[in-house]
């Protein structure tokens, strides 16, 4: 069976119409649904055993009209395995930490008697601050069943795009939506597509960057594990818009579940004709292949990624030429991040003005954040741009763990900086975060409390960047090493004021003269911790007289100027 037109698509959707209601928070009329979160995080916490226990229990007790459905990540990583129970006529209940021994209780009380098990129910009253666009299907549909995706308007955007819209119109819509690259750089996606489209040449490529490598970031993995089709659909739309008939998903091989679900999704989409020749009966042909990365952080940089796709050493090239001019094997190539793609279909179906109405003036839409560190609700949260850090940490994140006090939050992973308490009310968007000395990055947020030492935090990130440097340029190859050596000397109590000074000089040098984003941003954790927490550096310096002479305020003013 192939889907050859929008009519075919809507026929399939109508057959499964009931599914759509699940997305809207209701259950199918006469069926009870048990959704088990089976992303990597869930599985590693025992979700498969939980799923099996539910299935066995249902079989044993001979219940009818109950389905156990494997879904992706709901986002409550702190309470895996999570299970959502939809009983007709009731609002859905989400349970956390559901292990095998808890299953009979849920079956008996909730399913049979209709009384939720309060002991396990997650009460997260602030979820209304969240707004799910990229994660719209995660945790709600079975990622390995394309019909579940189709039932909730899947591939509608692609069908409309290739049958009713011109490439220029689509690019214009994406531009007007204000969508910016979610991988961290924040470059306007529509403009990137437009530039790639404008390049001469028949052959072009569109690449999905799924080389998520920041410590503590797992947004892209969750999307790929929970809703792989939304990425495939968006890549096809992008391919149509910019004139590419081949797409590549560059994904790290350490994401085996995401890889397997992507492979399943691609073959299902091919079977239905949603990938391949003449999509929706149009002249547009598009197919996607997967390229595994070996887990080098620097391969998330687009030119390094392209080198790696070509089988070369994964190291960045000087830009220009940009990939849009000369990318994969020299052809114009557009590289977009997973989360960026996840926003495309809604923009096409709901329109650019809808998307542009969300967020701040220069940062539109939502952003998925991975909350980690000393925070109660570790997990994923998708929130509109412009929400404050305070809301994110205290309302969605549930505040600091074990009654400790907030000290700082690291955004943007090893490339970002730490943000101290005074900036907690800053609305989060691309430009504000840069303004306060950090960056959006891919969306990892790591919260630290008063027991964390900021110099050690900087050292941790610096070590990461040093290890992940490809080694190509001098400042990054040797500079990060020397910075690490100095900071190591300082934390081992052997540092001097001169070391602090030379560390600072190095940070600016490495930032200003490195070849790619990795090196340019590697010193950020040091620069920002020196700016906000200089006293912690000074505390490591043994010579007390030196400390007296050192005027902290003067120092930080000076560093601002040097910025």
């Amino acid at each position, binding site marked *: 069976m192939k889907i050859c037109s929008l009519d075919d698509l809507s026929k399939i959707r109508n057959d499964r119409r009931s599914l759509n209601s699940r997305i809207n928070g209701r259950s199918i009329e006469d069926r009870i649904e048990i959704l088990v979160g089976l992303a990597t995080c869930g599985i590693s916490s025992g979700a498969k055993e939980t799923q099996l226990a539910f299935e066995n229990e249902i079989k044993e007790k001979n219940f009818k009209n109950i389905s156990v459905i494997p879904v992706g990540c709901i986002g409550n990583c702190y309470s895996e395995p999570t299970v959502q129970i939809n009983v007709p006529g009731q609002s859905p209940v989400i349970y956390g930490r559901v292990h095998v021994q808890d299953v009979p209780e849920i079956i008996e009380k909730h399913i049979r008697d209709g009384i939720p098990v309060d002991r396990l129910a997650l009460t997260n009253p602030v979820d209304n601050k969240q707004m799910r666009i990229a994660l719209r299907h995660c945790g709600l549909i079975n990622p390995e069943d394309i019909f579940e995706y189709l039932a909730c308007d899947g591939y509608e955007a692609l069908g409309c795009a290739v049958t009713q819209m011109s490439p220029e119109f689509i690019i214009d819509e994406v531009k007007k939506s204000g969508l910016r690259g979610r991988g961290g750089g924040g470059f306007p996606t529509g403009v990137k597509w437009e530039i790639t489209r404008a390049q001469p040449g028949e052959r072009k490529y569109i690449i999905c960057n799924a080389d998520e490598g920041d410590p503590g970031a797992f947004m892209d993995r969750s999307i790929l594990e929970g809703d792989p089709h939304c990425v495939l659909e968006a890549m096809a739309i992008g391919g149509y818009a910019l004139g590419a008939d081949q797409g590549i998903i560059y994904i790290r091989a350490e994401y085996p579940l995401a890889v397997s679900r992507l492979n399943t999704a691609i073959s299902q989409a091919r079977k239905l004709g949603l990938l391949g020749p003449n999509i929706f009966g149009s002249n547009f042909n598009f197919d996607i292949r997967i390229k595994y990365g070996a887990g080098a952080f620097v391969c998330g940089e687009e030119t390094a990624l392209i080198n790696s796709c070509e089988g070369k050493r994964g190291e960045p090239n000087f830009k220009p030429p940009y990939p849009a001019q000369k990318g994969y094997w020299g052809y114009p190539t557009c590289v977009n991040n997973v989360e960026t793609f996840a926003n495309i279909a809604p923009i096409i179906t709901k329109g650019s003005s809808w998307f542009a109405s969300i967020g701040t003036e220069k940062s539109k839409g939502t952003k998925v954040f991975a909350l980690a560190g000393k925070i109660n609700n570790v997990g994923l949260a998708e929130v509109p741009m412009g929400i404050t850090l305070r809301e994110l940490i205290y309302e969605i994140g549930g505040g600091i763990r074990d009654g400790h006090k907030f000290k700082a939050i690291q955004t943007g992973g090893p490339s970002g900086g730490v943000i101290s308490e005074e900036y907690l009310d800053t609305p989060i968007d691309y430009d504000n975060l840069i303004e306060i000395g950090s960056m959006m990055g891919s969306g990892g947020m790591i919260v630290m409390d008063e027991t964390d030492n900021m110099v050690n935090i900087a050292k941790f990130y610096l070590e990461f960047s040093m290890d992940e440097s490809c080694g190509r340029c001098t*400042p990054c190859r040797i500079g990060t090493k020397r910075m690490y050596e100095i900071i190591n000397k300082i934390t081992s109590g052997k540092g001097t004021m001169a070391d602090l000074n030379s560390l600072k000089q190095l940070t600016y040098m490495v930032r200003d003269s490195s070849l790619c984003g990795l090196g340019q941003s590697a010193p950020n954790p040091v620069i920002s911790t020196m700016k906000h927490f200089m006293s912690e550096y000074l505390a490591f310096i043994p010579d007390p007289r030196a400390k007296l002479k050192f005027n902290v305020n003067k120092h930080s003013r000076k560093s601002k100027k040097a910025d």
Partner: protein
Amino acid sequence: MLEPKEADDHKEIIPIKINDQNITVPVGITILEAAHQIGIRIPTLCHLDLHDIKMVNKTSSCRVCMVELSKGNNRNDLVPACVTPVTRDMEIRTDTLRAIRARRMAVELLLSNHPNECFTCPKNLECELQALAAELGVRQIRWEGERMDYPKDVSSDAIVKDANKCIYCRRCETMCNEVQTCGILSGIGRGFDSFVGPAFNIPMAESSCTYCGQCVQVCPTAALTEVNHTDKVWEALNDPDKHVVVQTAPAIRAALGELFNMEAGTLVTGKMVTALKRMDFDAVFDTNFGADITVMEEATELIYRMNNEKRLPMLTSCCPAWVKFIEHQFPELLDVPSTCKSPHIMFGTIAKTYYAEKNEIDPDNIVVVSVMPCIAKKAEAKRPELTKDEHNNVDIVITTRELGAMIKEAGIEFAELPESDFDSPMGMASGAAAIFGNTGGVIEAVIRTACEWITGDPLDNVEFDQLRGANGLRKAAIKVGNKELRIGIASGLGNARQLLEQIRDGKEDYDAIEIMACPGGCVAGGGQPYHHGNYEIVRKRQEAIYQEDKNKQLRKAHENIEVLKLYKEYLGEPYGEFAQDLLHTHFEERERI
């Protein structure tokens, strides 16, 4: 491969400003090129532009050429000049404090991870990193710390790889991969541990390296150098039991003077001979004598192969790097090269047989020293099949650079030397042999002889312009009587690969082909004085070589009376049974790694 540089006149001209000077330049050129146009020097290290041989190293990795752009540019304001293209109204300053600091820090960081042993380094005073530190006024290294600590790779007979001195400029990698297409050297490891080496860091000797030495020629430091054999020569010279014979390759005389501050392209044949005599070699001979023998053998072999419908084309086999290249990369074509030994090996064979017998010297006591523009010759001399009756054809090979160092060590004021002639009999050589040092020269020398032998008429003009030229891959048709000889010429192994692919795939028909591994020929060999990126030097050497030919009365190999005497008295017929036994060799398939 790189595309050839587009002609500038098709390009839009834009205004820019460098250090307050307003200039107009073609769009697309780099800041570095623009600055050069108005005489502003920007220091560079990894950058290397050898456009003549289509090698441009654009890694922009050392970050030494950082310049500052004025605010308002939509990008980082410190940019590398070597790769950043100029844009309309760009305002550049090469001398701001930030730019100077960034450059100096890049060099300091490199030095902080460099074994600072300049005194004992083979590249002392030839090292570009050393020169840069001096130029930038580096007076301290502020960031000391761990240094790379890898063992030296001394596995091969030709090239020493000292990863601890690698500054990761990747010039060698570009040369090895893009120009020579051998694919031996590439980045290994990551971050602080990165260096360049063969895949999996196997020893050079186990790799498919041809030892062409072009990596050595472009390495800015001593990460890649030749195996030094000067001490062996001193030892032989000081051994009273040894009769030490030296031979100098055609390309040496056109380049040796550079090591003594003489103008590039100065022919120093006579001074070189004097220097060698003063160093107390027992006989100072000319490899060109061996080259004349090579012409006799190759011309005969060519005519034999043509007349007897044997495998054509015939490829010249003088270049040991190219021979090793075909053994590794095209083993299915091993029947195409001429079986001739290379000229210096032929010379060595004759020295240890004919010369030894004639002068009643025990061949075991003869030490043949070859002075070569080449690093691969060092490994060639060690090939087991090139021994005769338990002794090597050639015992020691030193490069032009090593000879220069020895002359200095001997305290000889080279530039002041009087001229003298090579010794007899193996010092006599034709102009045909002289041009062996240039690309196209070997085949031209063979054609001069083959032409006369085929037609039976003397040649009016011995200079075949259609075989000369700067292009790395050339085709020519030479009329010989009523026949037309189709000739192919490649210099540089990347061009050789293209030629061999044409032959393998049956796309082009040739009768004879000359291949030299080094772009431009032996004058640009890996053992020649470092040209430091100035390719004009190589062109001047080429001109000098052609001048050496012009200076000769004797311009055809088969008119060399000493060579004719050698055949008459000893070898018999060219390509005859005894000549084949002594002067020919065989090739074998080698693993490709």
